[in-house]
């Protein structure tokens, strides 16, 4: 059997909840986990006589995202009604966009293993309102919660350009990084901020022919892990099914499967694609939306550098690892804070360590962004420089960072106040070194005789000196003096 007899082909339909303050067409607050039907008004529950009013911020969020996905942006777009009856859709039509989506024909660049990138084409990006939720587990009846009804929802449809479970996951994670980076969504899959519905099939290569298996749409994926696993499972399942039945892709034999997170299998939900007629027509209650060249320009300026570009730049320009650069570019605030600090002349790796090890921890603890902490790029740059110059130890720098982050202040003043300035007074250090050499003859001997333990012994002596200094001796200078003294002893020996 050939190494790889088939290619997995996956396209994604993605729904992203936009993080606006209010709903798409009314003033109700967006909420999560609130008591049912407490975040509703006559508009979002479809009372007689109500009219929608477009949320401009949601529209801008959608344009920003479409721009980040390199789409052609519609300078003239409109709203359409999509009709279908369902109890969680109070008007029995959804306000959506049909033939003039906000964005079309774009692509997203995703990181590939080995450091390269791959482009996944984006077919369209459009904005619509979300439905409410039917709650079925109440016994003999179904209840409807309309808190979510009318929330702004961005639909993104890709071309079938992904060819492995890992690529699908990479695409999903990159998209999440983009929407979080842009601040248009919190991108929390568990909370349903992002829903991914893959369309999967196989291209099976056999006897010089290609057989395409029927497409399945997979629903109910609540994590990146589930998304990745479901693709792998589907590939396997479809291959087995093909071997058994020989069934290939036909019009109308698309199936819908649900992901069972416990069994880690896909379960058939619908055998045949129902022929929906949504009877789209232009929404007469809303006026078309025009984007002027100036508005477009203004949004482009707000867009700035994308996370993947920034990550690559951090790697190339600052010599950071892909991992470090990835952590820094998960959020725009962190990335920009880092970038500004480094531009002030601070050493990138040093700044990266301080930011990712201390900054993100405290920010997370206080539920704020890094740039909302009391530390500024200026004070961080100063602190990094002090550390590089040996004025403070790395541990001392972490303590200083934490204090400035929480309360503000000048790194030098805090270092002095907390007694964290390292001694670089060589006379003083020399005395300590002499004392330690006198106290630790065994270790000295190990070094001088270049025994197997020499390296360990040297470290031990260093530690002893620093301990004697109460942790304030500059390790660089200690090392210099200690090594010089030991060299002298060696020569004597």
């Amino acid at each position, binding site marked *: 059997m050939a190494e790889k007899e088939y290619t997995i082909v996956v396209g994604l339909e993605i729904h992203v909840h936009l993080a606006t303050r209010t709903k798409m067409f009314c003033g109700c607050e967006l909420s999560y986990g609130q008591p049912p039907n407490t975040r509703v008004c006559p508009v979002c529950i479809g009372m007689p006589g109500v009219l929608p009013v477009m949320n401009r911020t949601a529209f801008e969020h959608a344009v920003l995202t479409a721009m980040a996905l390199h789409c052609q942006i519609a300078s003239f777009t409109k709203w359409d009604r999509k009709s279908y009856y369902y109890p969680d859709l109070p008007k029995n039509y959804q306000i959506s966009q049909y033939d003039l989506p906000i964005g079309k024909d774009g692509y997203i660049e995703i990181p590939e293993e080995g450091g390269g990138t791959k482009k996944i084409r984006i077919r369209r990006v459009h904005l619509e309102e979300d439905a409410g939720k039917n709650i079925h587990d109440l016994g003999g009846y179904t209840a409807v919660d309309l808190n979510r009804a009318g929330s702004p929802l961005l639909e993104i449809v890709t071309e079938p350009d992904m060819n492995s479970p890992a690529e699908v996951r990479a695409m999903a994670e990159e998209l999440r990084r983009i929407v979080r980076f842009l601040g248009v969504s919190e991108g929390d899959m568990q909370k349903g901020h992002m829903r991914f519905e893959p369309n999967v099939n196989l291209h099976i290569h056999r006897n010089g022919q290609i057989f395409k298996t029927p497409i399945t749409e997979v629903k109910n994926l609540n994590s990146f892990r589930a998304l990745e696993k479901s693709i792998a499972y589907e590939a396997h399942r479809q291959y087995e099914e093909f071997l058994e039945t020989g069934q290939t892709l036909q019009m109308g034999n698309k199936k819908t499967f649900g992901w069972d997170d416990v069994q880690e299998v896909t379960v058939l939900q619908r055998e045949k694609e129902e022929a929906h007629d949504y*009877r789209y027509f232009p929404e007469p209650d809303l006026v078309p939306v025009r984007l002027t060249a100036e508005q477009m320009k203004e949004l482009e300026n707000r867009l700035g550098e994308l996370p993947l570009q920034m990550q690559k730049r951090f790697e190339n320009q600052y010599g950071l690892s892909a991992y470090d650069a990835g952590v820094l570019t998960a959020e725009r605030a962190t990335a920009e804070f880092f970038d500004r600090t480094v531009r002030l002349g601070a050493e990138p790796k040093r700044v990266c360590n301080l930011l990712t090890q201390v900054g993100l921890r405290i920010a997370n603890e206080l539920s704020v962004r890094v740039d909302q902490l009391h530390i500024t790029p200026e004070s961080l740059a100063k602190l990094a420089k002090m550390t590089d110059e040996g004025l403070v130890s790395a541990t001392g720098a972490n303590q200083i960072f934490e204090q400035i982050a929480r309360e503000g202040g000048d790194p030098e003043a805090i270092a002095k106040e907390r007694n964290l300035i390292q001694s670089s007074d060589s006379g003083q250090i020399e005395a300590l070194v002499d004392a330690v050499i006198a106290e630790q003859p065994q270790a000295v001997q190990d070094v001088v005789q270049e025994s197997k333990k020499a390296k360990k012994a040297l470290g031990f002596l260093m530690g002893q000196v620093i301990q004697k200094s109460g942790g304030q001796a500059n390790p660089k200078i200690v090392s210099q003096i200690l090594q010089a003294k030991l060299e002298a002893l060696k020569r004597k020996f």
Partner: protein
Amino acid sequence: MEWTVCSIRDRIASGKLKSREAVERFFARIEKIEPQVGAFLTLLKETALEQARKVDEKTASGQPLGPLAGVPVAVKDNLCTTFGPTTCASRMLEHFTSPYNAHVIEKLLAADAVIVGKTNMDEFAMGSSTENSGLKKTCNPWDLSRVPGGSSGGSAAAVAARMCAAALGSDTGGSIRQPAGFCGVVGLKPTYGRVSRYGLVAYGSSLDQIGPIAQTVEDAAVLLNVIAGHDPRDSTCVSEQTAPVPDYTAGLEMPLEGLRIAVVESFLEGIQTEVRQAIEEALRLYQKLGARLVPIQMPHFEYAISAYYVIATAEASSNLARYDGVHYGYRSPRAGDYIEVYSKSRDEALGAEVKRRIMLGTFALSSGYYDAYYLKALKVRNLIRNDFTRAFEQADCLMMPVSPTTAFRFGEKTADPLQMYLADIYTIAVNLAGVPAISIPCGLDRQNLPIGLQIVTAPFTESMLLQIARMFESQTDWHTRMPVFAAD
């Protein structure tokens, strides 16, 4: 003309009349007349007296009064109110009370008006005779065996029988102007976008517009002053910068010099002779006042009804989808699963005409038919709009009948819906173009039934429209005629 809006307002403001007296006087008439006319679906005597009491208190304590202070008015039952049900004359909403007030209701209340009741209509405003009401029969006060017109038949009948000083209606294809014409009162459909539709239960969203039905042109202007203007809750409502709201009563008495009146000769062909004669008579009067007639063509006018019944029904099929028995309104007790909640509730609570239009609209929007019907209708609509634009390049206004006949008898047209649709030929094109139009009384036929003259002007020129209407009114006494039945 003792009980017009202006007269009541002035007398209350000057202390000669108490709002309570006015309300009681109208309710006394309602008690006497309403049982035979049936104009109201809900009477709101208690809240009306309460509103009147507040006005009287304001007057007594010398507080400033709103422009409709103490004036008893009625509103069509497709305008949402938190007091009394909002039924749209449908069994679907028979017991429905809105959680909010429509924009125009807020405006009326802010103007210190007193709302005496909610008037009957064709179910969801679909019809031209009020015979499609699912809840009540309304008779024309001029002849109780005839229809009042529709869909705002209750509002027109109530004003004609002087059961209120004035009323609000809504006009999607003539629903203010035609019943006003049939009942011998003034009916104004403002420009689309002039009055907020927030809280008007939608029928054809791109055509619906709220407007006044009144005894005089001046009363209509006073009401328009109150309800016109921008509302951020209606995106199709025009901003004050684009179209400022003037005082529509200012300059009302000033006749327009050198008025150019567009007329389409064919519009007077094939219609009831007396209607034709009354319109010709009116035109002669305008000429006597210095106006000049400009014969024009409206080449796409004849396609208006076809385009209207595609666009309005398409929008209606979607607008009325929410009446499904799930969240509010009628739910069939016979429904098993949720599909049956939809099908049985709608089947049992919606009337035949509403179902007919929902089906028409659903069909027109269906995949494979959209281009042939809906898209084509939109193109026709544009052509009709252009017809009006060209007309108003050559003339200040267009004059034509409101409808080809005077009020017809109950049942006369119900058997043939198409005949009923065709009678709206003169009013429908106006909605498609979105332009303002007024219907004013201009005569009586041999059976003593009112005839209406329709005047149309360019978008947002309601001031001129009212001025033109007033020119005729000031020279005639048709607006002072009352149905004998409803005389004091």
